[in-house]
């Protein structure tokens, strides 16, 4: 936090700020001291905020034209695509926006994993982030059901049926979720309601996420604590604002390419067939961003254990700050962790790939090995690595990273004082 007292210049500003310190908040946000060595992996926080706002704004417009009824949903989506002015644009931005949102959030999460941003004192930021991620998955799944195509219907059937794995009350819960004895109109209307609600929950959590971030301040590629404000930091505005803006524009170019030139490539063709409870599609696959977890679910032969494995795969992330025992944050100074990090990235990509393939033969075997490795990484490799790994010497400040070349803290400090 920037701790200095802020006094508005104008008389009215002062009067207002004494009653509601919005100007103090604005001043805090512009002055917010940010490490000056943040690289472009750090721009995805801003990009994600943009994604959320885009989804909410386009979603509001879509909701004005969409009809949440089993007999009319598919037609109303086609009505949006054909007869609503620029409806096609709004819908394609919303549909591809979901994919872009997940692309950005995966980069954001893996940036955090690489630079150890989840470690003390940033555990709360991380855990709020995991909750946001869970809500994003829920919102994306619910949203995919709304067009009421074949994949919507059968995806909803498969996912809601997962709850039936819960012992004793499972079947009851599924009936309760459906609002009937199969996925039908009551399911669609409640999914629409929840799909409308969740983005605003996410918005609230994003505020908490940023608030929690502004207490300790940003982590940075070197991963050391820095004094704030100091010569290691720059004010958020204009330095970070313009850099985030630049990265956001590059991101928007990719986004625009999808929207305008291949708007349906990330979706499944079957979702342009209206939902039909009597015809099951040959392969029921979720959207690409859920595929790794789908692979984990299917790699376990038992239904209940599969659901448990899938949920644990996400929830285990919440325990990450305590599973990773290393005191060093950034992978830059952790030669072994760096390698395991890239293996994990490959592992998740492999899980995503086999998630899209039929669960049989070699694919199933690969999925099982990859699932086992995923848990091995978090439960065994990370804790052990923290104790065993010989880390590289870390610098004392980010402006003079060479200084810290000495593992001996005293020598390094001595050098620093000599430089002054």
């Amino acid at each position, binding site marked *: 936090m920037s701790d200095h007292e802020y006094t508005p210049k104008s008389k009215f500003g002062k009067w207002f700020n004494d009653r509601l310190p919005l100007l103090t908040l604005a001043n805090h946000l512009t002055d917010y001291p940010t490490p*000056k*060595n943040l*690289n*472009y*992996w750090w721009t995805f926080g801003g990009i994600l905020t943009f994604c959320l706002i885009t989804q909410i704004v386009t979603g509001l417009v879509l909701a004005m034209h969409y009809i949440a009824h089993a007999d009319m949903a598919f*037609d109303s989506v*086609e009505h949006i*695509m*054909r007869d609503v002015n620029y409806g*096609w*644009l709004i819908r*394609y931005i919303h549909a591809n926006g979901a994919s872009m949102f997940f*692309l950005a959030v995966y*980069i954001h999460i893996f940036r955090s994993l690489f630079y150890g941003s989840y470690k003390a004192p940033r555990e709360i930021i991380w855990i709020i982030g995991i909750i946001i991620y869970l809500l994003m998955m829920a919102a994306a799944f619910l949203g995919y059901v709304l067009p009421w195509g074949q994949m919507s219907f059968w995806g909803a059937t498969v996912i809601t049926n997962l709850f039936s794995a819960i012992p004793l009350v499972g079947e009851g819960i599924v009936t309760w979720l459906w609002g009937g004895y199969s996925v039908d109109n009551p399911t669609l209307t409640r999914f629409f309601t929840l799909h409308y609600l969740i983005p605003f929950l996410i918005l609230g959590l994003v505020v908490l996420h940023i608030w929690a971030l502004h207490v300790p301040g940003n982590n940075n590629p070197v991963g050391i604590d820095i004094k704030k404000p100091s010569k290691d930091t*720059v004010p958020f505005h*204009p*330095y970070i604002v*313009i*850099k985030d*803006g*630049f*990265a956001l*524009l*590059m*991101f*928007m*170019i*990719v986004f*625009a*390419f*999808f*929207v*305008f*030139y*291949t*708007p*349906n*490539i*990330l979706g499944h*063709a*079957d979702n*342009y*067939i209206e939902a039909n409870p009597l015809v099951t599609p*040959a392969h029921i696959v979720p959207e*690409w961003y859920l595929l790794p977890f789908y692979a984990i679910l299917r790699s376990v032969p038992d239904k209940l254990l599969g659901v448990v494995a899938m949920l644990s795969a996400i929830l285990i992330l919440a325990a990450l700050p305590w599973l990773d025992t290393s005191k060093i944050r950034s992978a830059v100074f952790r030669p072994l962790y760096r390698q395991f990090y890239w293996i994990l990235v490959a592992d998740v990509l492999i899980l995503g*790939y086999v998630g*899209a393939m039929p669960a049989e033969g070699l694919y199933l075997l690969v999925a099982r090995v990859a699932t086992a490795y995923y848990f091995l990484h978090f439960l065994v490799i990370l804790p052990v690595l923290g104790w065993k790994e010989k880390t590289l010497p870390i610098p004392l400040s980010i402006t003079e990273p060479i200084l810290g070349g000495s593992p001996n803290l005293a020598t390094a400090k001595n050098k620093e004082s000599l430089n002054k």
Partner: protein
Amino acid sequence: MKNFIKIFSFIILFSGLSLSTQAAEKVEYLKTDWSFKGLFGKFDRAALQRGYQVYTEVCSSCHSMKYLSYRNLAEKGGPEFSIEQAKAIAASFEVKDGPNSDGDMFTRPGRLSDKFVMPYDNVQAAQAANGGAYPPDMSVLVKARGGGVDYIYSLLQGYEDPPAGVTLDDGVYYNKYMYGNKIKMANQLSDGLVEYSDGTIASVEQMSKDVTTFLMWSAEPHLESRHQMGFKAIVYLIILTILVYFSMKRIWSRIETEV
């Protein structure tokens, strides 16, 4: 900047991967040049008009197009029939309307605002008339099939005699591009089946291409404006990005750090 290039290439790679996984599932379809592909892709107006003719004279006896209205035929970016032509087309169909003030249903000639007339009253009637198979609505058909236009184009030309050992039930036909190779629609196209008013030879290949183009338009009626707007949007974004890049350089030069 180096780091930035890394991220950007990662995103491009991701996009490439997503495209290639889609491509991996494809069978080898027949290839043809589609005028609507690419950054500036537009529909071939004459092909759309011919395609509409094939649809009405051949497909429409079984396949509905419930999301299209006759007015669409005269709209920009479509077949672009003149308003008079579109009105005449609409008027050539009998549309059920009502109830009138006496409470009776009646038929009248179609208007521009009417939806395309459906060949069957309901799904059951369609199934009963087609040996239990429902001829799918064709409004969004090309988007509802994995191979898209190439698939439809190939399927129309993919009829052949079943290989030895494959026995077909009554009313089932062999098509090498159909999923499972068995299709309940008989081969519909034969050379010279329709007579094109613009003098184009109505070969099976030509008709397949025309009607598939028509189906692409019916599935994506705003494709042309999408491409045009997309090009403008991306050029705008690129210029803005360059400007912002130099502003960023300028701002960061105050503290002499590489961005």
